[in-house]
């Protein structure tokens, strides 16, 4: 951790990874919340437990759907972006040029991207969660009018701080995975434009795969330590 701290590049990455992923993540969260509310309602009505819908929706979105959907959407968008950008820099000798000027390319390129992914993923997940809950309420409201405040009160009635802590920790790990794999695949690119395409594809495939695997492992660990 030495000067310069590459604040300019870090800010650019916050914008690239965070701001520009927000619309897609929000849309995915909204769609999941809406569909989940519609699907859950018919099942809960069947058992006479439709009053549980807000709590069920909030619990499933915050615990699982929000983090994993955000992780997978960002894997696709950002993983490919980092893999392609660094791959293109590699084949056009821009990474060599950084190294030749006495600057550590891993600090300038990889560290900034990985840190941005780690910090941005929890924030994007919060946005996806909010959109999911909000559109879940809209879906519920279409079937049976209920105020948003009441929906939220019912939804978060049994929630504690631990319910937010564990999913946030998971999204930090997802961010680390996406950043690491994107940078690794990008910086080892070989073979011109074909190699860039290959790096982008493998960055998406591997980061999605590892996000899913990490989700499975982390859910188990979280259940052991937090429940």
């Amino acid at each position, binding site marked *: 951790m030495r000067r*310069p701290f590459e604040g300019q590049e870090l800010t*650019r990455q916050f914008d690239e990874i965070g701001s520009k992923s927000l619309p897609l993540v929000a849309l995915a969260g909204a769609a999941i919340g809406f569909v989940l509310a519609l699907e859950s309602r018919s099942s809960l009505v069947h058992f006479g437990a439709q009053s549980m819908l807000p709590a069920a929706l909030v619990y499933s979105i915050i615990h699982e759907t929000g983090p994993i959907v955000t992780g997978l959407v960002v894997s696709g968008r950002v993983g490919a972006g980092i893999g392609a*950008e660094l791959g*293109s*820099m590699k084949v*056009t*000798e*821009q990474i*060599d*040029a*950084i*190294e*030749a*000027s*006495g*600057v*550590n390319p891993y600090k300038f390129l990889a560290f900034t991207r990985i840190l941005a992914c780690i910090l941005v993923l929890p924030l994007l997940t919060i946005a996806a969660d909010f959109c999911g809950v909000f559109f879940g309420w809209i879906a519920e409201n279409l079937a049976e009018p209920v105020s948003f405040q009441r929906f939220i009160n019912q939804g978060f009635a049994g929630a504690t701080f631990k319910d937010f802590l564990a999913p946030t920790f998971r999204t930090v790990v997802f961010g680390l995975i996406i950043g690491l794999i994107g940078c690794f695949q990008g910086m080892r690119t070989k073979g011109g434009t074909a190699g860039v395409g290959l790096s982008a594809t493998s960055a998406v495939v591997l980061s999605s795969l590892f996000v899913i695997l990490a989700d499975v492992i982390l859910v188990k660990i979280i259940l052991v330590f937090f429940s």
Partner: protein
Amino acid sequence: MIRSDQQILLDGETSGAIPRTETSREKHDVPAMVLRGLHKSFERQIVLDGVDLTVKRGETLAMLGRSGTGKSVLLKLIIGLQRPDSGSIRIHDQEITRLDLEALNAIRKTMGFLFQHAALYDSLSVEQNIAFPLKRHTKMTASERGDRVKQLLSSVGMERDLGKMPSDISGGMQKRVGLARALALEPAILLLDEPTAGLDPITSGEINELILKLQEEHDMASIVVTHDLQSAKTIADRIALLHEGQVLIEGSFEDLEKSDNEFVSEFMKRDS
């Protein structure tokens, strides 16, 4: 305390800095780069097979050779982007093949490198590209940095293109910006990888004149890898021809023209 030139020279050797106090004649006798017995191969393909070269301070060496003979690899070995399989590379009398990254970066700061396709950072503007090494290796304020960038761009005739992105300028302009970036830290050694490749004859001529002008101004030791014989004749003090992994001949342009060696005469004839 008055220090002798010898003492300053020794201090320069230990710190990797360039002693600046010798007389002009002495200065040009001091080798900036000494390469001995350099070997480099990729898998089974031997690229460099015992290259010996010395480039003195203030001298420009043009490196000629057929495509794929390892000219660009040689430049990458000198700046430490690749490691030789064996052999010695001494820069400012310091062996660089065994240096750790930190020490190597200190040496790299005394060297400028122009890549074959300029390798400008495409997410940064022309101004930011040139300011990149200044921001990281000097204590200049933002305004001092801005002045230095303008001065460098002015020296390559690009002062009006400060805010443009690399994708918005031509190949020749990119080479000029790359050259300005290579000169940003006032290097003692300049490595140019095909500075005129892919450019039209007029732009090539302009780049050659620019290199000559900058060499006169900055008095650097330079290695210019080129396929352009006319360019080599214009800008180089000495020419080396790389063939089958070794320096086949070294001398002035006239020496190469007069050579009896079959490959050398064939190379000079075909290229001209």
